[in-house]
């Protein structure tokens, strides 16, 4: 094959597909046809191009497995809400009653709520098994115990040594508490009194100490 033919083959090879698609100008199409008629290699290339097209176009389509549509629908479908689940449970015949039934249920729930709230006893909760008089007595004794604590916490902090607390605060509280019903005191009042005592001793006294230092003109 000479150089001129080789150049023609490259030129032709680039135009085989548009030539077969009839997309070339008349002049170019005639040039390709002339070259192919005289060149065995390019004629074989054209035959191969035709075979490729024919074979591609004869390739069959395939049937999608039928379960894929259902699988995709299941994957994409949003999860049913409570209303849909109830409707599915009731079935199509009963579904027409679902909306009125739900409305009636809401009315009933609201009415019950209003009734309960309007009859709610707002008085403090009394431990079961004890009379109001017993609870009142225990509360009075607790107030006395708080009074003792209050008296000592007004004094300078050095007074509130552990031995002082042990000698004065604790016996006074114990005495007051022991006079009431032990069970009531242990269960309902002791924790509250303990908390109050701790607060009074360690929180409430601190600002008073600082204030008294300033009054006396002591350096901080």
């Amino acid at each position, binding site marked *: 094959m000479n150089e001129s033919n080789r150049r023609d083959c490259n030129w032709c090879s680039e135009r085989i*597909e548009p030539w077969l698609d009839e997309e070339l100008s008349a002049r170019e199409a005639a040039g390709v046809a002339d070259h192919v008629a005289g060149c065995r290699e390019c004629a074989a290339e054209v035959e191969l191009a035709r075979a490729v097209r024919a074979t591609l176009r004869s390739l069959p389509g*395939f049937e999608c497995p039928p379960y894929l549509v259902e699988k995709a629908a299941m994957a994409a479908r949003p999860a049913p809400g409570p209303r849909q689940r109830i409707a599915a449970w009731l079935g199509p015949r009963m579904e027409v009653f679902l909306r009125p039934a739900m409305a009636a249920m809401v009315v009933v729930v609201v009415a019950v709520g209003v009734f309960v709230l309007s009859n709610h006893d707002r008085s403090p909760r009394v431990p079961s098994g004890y009379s109001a008089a017993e609870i009142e007595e225990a509360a009075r004794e607790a107030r006395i115990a708080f009074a003792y604590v209050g008296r000592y916490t007004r004094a300078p902090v050095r007074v509130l040594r552990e031995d002082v607390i042990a000698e004065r605060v604790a016996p006074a509280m114990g005495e007051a508490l022991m006079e009431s019903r032990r069970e009531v005191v242990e269960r309902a009042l002791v924790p509250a009194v303990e908390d109050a005592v701790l607060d009074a001793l360690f929180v409430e006294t601190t600002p008073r100490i600082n204030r008294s230092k300033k009054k006396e003109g002591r350096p901080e």
Partner: protein
Amino acid sequence: MEDRFRRLADAYKNTIYTFALYSLRRQEDAEDVTQDVLVKLWQNMDSIDPERAGAWVMRVARNAVIDVARRRKTRSAVFAEEVDVDIAANYAVAESGTDRHVRRREFREALESALAGIDEPYRSILIMREVQQHSYREIVEALDMPLNTVKVYLHRGRRMLREALGEEYREA
């Protein structure tokens, strides 16, 4: 909505599956792609123009195929995985054993293999245009490319297929 989904799914499920199977040559991957596209079809039902549903489906299918091919490439790079060829198993009709038929079958298998091996967008354009015989308009919309570009890719793709087939088939 469900009725509309089923109508569209029935209309396009085979198109998607065929496109995926010729692109990836493995039934399992083709099923994954088809399901993925159908799920997206459901999710985008309200925004799909019925006139352009075909182009939309093909665009999503092509993207799904590219994703699977990319994952497969990564997988095979790590595990030296071989790609199964499941297309032959999908041919319903058994072929006769004459020499001519055997040659034709060999040529077809070589062509399918070459088709799955060429790069994007040549492969998608060849499958859409030559195998599935979509219109140029659908391909242009699906790939969002100008018509002339699609035609140039189609010509180059066919030429690439011929080159991939080798000298053996030029003598035939």
